[in-house]
């Protein structure tokens, strides 16, 4: 299963590198390179990013436990994924050095609120509760939904439509967990188990601790592609945007990063990354409060 990923990743990385090289040399608005390899300057330069935790660096915290947004490569120990590539691209365009601390999800949001990091970036839904708690969000950089993740032998079941008497698993502190706990009365499941992260949750599914997982649909889709024994059951529900998250009061930093994200959407970089990690192009709403950017997960290539 894992060995299948590498030829494909290598191929995608290589083609992405080619595309990036092609893009980098011509598209930006300000000065272009001359004979010496001067860095390409863009509209949002380093001096335009206020309130960085450490000068010259962009601290982007992730969990390393939410594939394909962020995951730890078992062989190299590197953090990689859609969120990581986005962060890398943003840091590069701003001329900042990228640092990627890795913590559990609850500690991630808390550390951000304490001002330890610049950005929290592992597929975070800018929902009402988080906005009310004071977190500041970038413009959306993708969207996703919630789906039931199951073992392949159960892929023909109805997903959330019929979960009476079942044991459901999820990730502690996630918005998927909130959905399941809030819907306890309507869904009528037997029990909910909250795991520390995606890997523990999948292990629980495989070991038979839980009958299905309430999962991010891109995570579940990725897992289904990588693993023969994992699938999704039923439709994607509650599609919602995902954004970078900032500490309260960091509107200036957010605005600077929004400029870069807008550039990346406009020049197709985001679409490239979506194709690479999700295998499809997903509509990116402009508004963080956009309800249901789509009702079924788009299937085709970009």
């Amino acid at each position: 299963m894992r060995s299948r990923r590498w030829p494909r990743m290598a191929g995608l990385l290589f083609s992405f590198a080619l595309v990036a090289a092609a893009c980098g040399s011509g598209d930006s608005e300000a000065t272009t390179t001359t004979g010496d390899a001067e860095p390409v300057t863009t509209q949002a330069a380093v001096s335009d990013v206020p309130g960085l935790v450490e000068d010259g660096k962009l601290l982007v915290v992730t969990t390393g436990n939410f594939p394909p947004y962020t995951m730890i490569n078992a062989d190299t120990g590197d953090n990689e994924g859609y969120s990581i590539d986005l962060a890398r691209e943003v840091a590069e365009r701003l001329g900042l050095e990228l640092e990627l601390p890795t913590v559990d999800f609850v500690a991630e949001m808390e550390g951000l609120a304490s001002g330890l990091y610049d950005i929290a970036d592992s597929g975070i839904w800018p929902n009402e509760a988080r906005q009310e708690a004071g977190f500041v969000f970038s413009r959306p950089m993708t969207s996703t939904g919630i789906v039931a993740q199951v073992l392949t032998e159960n892929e023909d079941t109805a997903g959330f439509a019929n979960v009476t008497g079942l044991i459901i698993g999820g990730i502690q502190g996630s918005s998927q967990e909130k959905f399941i706990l809030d819907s306890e009365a309507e869904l009528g499941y037997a029990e909910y188990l909250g795991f520390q992260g995606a890997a523990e949750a999948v292990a629980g599914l495989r070991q038979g601790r839980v009958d299905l997982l309430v999962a991010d649909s891109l995570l579940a889709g990725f897992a289904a592609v990588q693993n023969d024994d994992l699938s999704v059951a039923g439709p994607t529900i509650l599609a919602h945007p995902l954004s970078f998250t900032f500490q309260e009061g960091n509107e200036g930093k957010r605005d600077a990063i929004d400029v870069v994200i807008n550039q990346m959407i406009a020049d197709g970089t985001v679409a490239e990354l979506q194709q690479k990690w999700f295998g499809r192009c997903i509509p990116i709403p402009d508004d963080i409060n956009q309800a249901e950017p789509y009702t079924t997960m788009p299937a085709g290539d970009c």
Partner: protein
Amino acid sequence: MDWDVVLESFPLIWKGAGKTVGLFAWSLAVGTVLALAVALMKISSAKPLIWFATFFSWLFRGIPLLILLFYAFFALPEVGWLLSPFWAAVLGLSLWTAAYQAEVIRSGIIAVDHGQTEASDALAMTRGHSMRRIIIPQSIRIMVPPFTSNATTLLKQTSLATLVTVPEMTLLTQRIFSNNFKFIEPIFVLAMIYLAMTTVLIIGQQIAERTFRLRT
């Protein structure tokens, strides 16, 4: 501190009290039985039993409780033994507390005046008889303080079951603050409930000590 949030949080956290007390009661029961067995092994004259008891104590006091819990939760299913989160936690907690309580029980038995053992031998009592009627009752008096102290620690350690998904009080508290990002109030409520429970145990210890004291 927003007292409305405190009042809201209390019932949500209290829902986990049943699991907390359940973990505590089961682990104490199973752990004490195990501890008694290990203690008796340690004071027996059979070398293999002594060796096993020593190994047991060294092993389960040498590694953190959390590693035991993770073992029971993540590793055992790999060898086919799938325990629910609650029972996996009880297994880990029992083994852990048994190692400590075994020492308490053993010290209690040894501390009883050797003369008592000799006297009962002289009266031709069987070892089992003298243990049951002479030694153990006196040992209990000595054991009560450290035993209840360990039991109080066990109660607090049930909070680690949160890391293996058991919905006891600590996990329910985390659920509250990871949702509404209000930290002070739920954590305060959690601390107060634990403080109340441990204080009850401490009072219980005073009562037990008074019950078993020497009547002079």
